[in-house]
């Protein structure tokens, strides 16, 4: 008697491959969409976009915190390494600079307690970029050519918002130049 219905093995193989490919591709697509949305907001000076304090009306990223000031740089290392500068809070609140690749992985984070200074310079390059043209305090190596850098700064009831705003203007991302 001839069997009818779908062959089991090809179906299961397809099911597994389809699911695996989708799960592999989705983070990159979601990240690309978020980067497009950030790009469309326009840029501030020195590559950084300093987002206003998150409210229900202006939120663009899921699960953003209204207790944190966010600034962001999109990066593309195709033209070479990038220099990132950050100024840390004088009031002792948490702040960090975190680096995300195009697949959403957080491949490096540097916070205010990792350093002994009120500001830090960081070079961002690809692993095979052997020549970093400028000296910096810290280095980060991106697994992908594009991605984004996020500056977070906690604000609370006692935070001087004007001072916090001035401090985060010290977060910049600029193309390095050969010296």
């Amino acid at each position, binding site marked *: 008697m001839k069997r009818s219905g779908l062959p089991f093995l090809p179906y299961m193989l397809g099911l597994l491959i389809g699911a695996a490919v989708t799960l592999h591709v989705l983070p990159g697509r979601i990240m690309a969409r978020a980067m497009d949305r950030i790009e469309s907001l326009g840029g501030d000076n020195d590559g950084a976009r300093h987002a206003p304090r998150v409210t*229900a009306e202006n939120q663009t990223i899921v699960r953003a915190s209204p207790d944190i000031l966010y600034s962001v740089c999109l990066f593309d290392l195709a033209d070479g390494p990038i220099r990132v500068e950050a100024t840390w809070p004088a009031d002792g609140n*948490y702040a960090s600079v975190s680096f995300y690749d195009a697949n959403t992985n957080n491949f490096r984070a540097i916070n205010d307690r990792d350093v002994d200074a009120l500001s830090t310079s960081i070079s961002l390059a690809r692993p095979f970029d052997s020549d970093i043209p400028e000296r910096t305090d810290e280095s980060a190596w991106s697994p992908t050519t594009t991605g984004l850098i996020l500056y977070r700064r906690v604000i609370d009831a006692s935070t001087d918002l004007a001072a916090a705003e001035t401090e985060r203007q010290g977060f910049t991302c600029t193309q390095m130049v050969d010296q």
Partner: protein
Amino acid sequence: MTLRHVLTFLVGSACGAVLAATLVFSPIEIGGVSNGPWITNPHIGSSDANPLTRALVARRGLLALTREEAVYFTATRDSNDLNLSERCAYEITGEIPPARWWSITIYDEDSFLPRNGLDRHAVNSSSVDINGDGRVVIPVGQASPGAIATDQAGLFSLTLRLYHPDPIVLEGLDSLDFPRIERIGCEGDT
């Protein structure tokens, strides 16, 4: 291999893609570590996260930090395992695990702050009174000024952020005492 096998493979691939997308975009919580109503995934933000975790985080917690920097716990249900709903009032009571700074924020079903015109989406370690015994009482969905507002939140979730968590938090994600989420009452209760 016959044409029938190829077509079956393609049907299977399409079903797999739909199944994966459904898992990622549905409100179902998958994997992670539970502590009462609070759920976290220690691999959030990390490159060693499995593909499903990475996709789930990209959908619901894009740009999260790794656990050494911050731990994120999310609750979609109260301590009696009932959905958190804007129709009900709650109290978060107990000790917040030790960390440099913490906050609790409400998000609607789409993981955005509820659009309700009320600037009461979050409380943090500097805005909440901590009792002498280290416990907090945080009203949710109540009219009091310090309460987290639930208006327009539907079936909502709460995210507890612990920045620079104490090492005992990372070691005891599922065993440490976490605050309870107690339902006080709901619209229509008699």
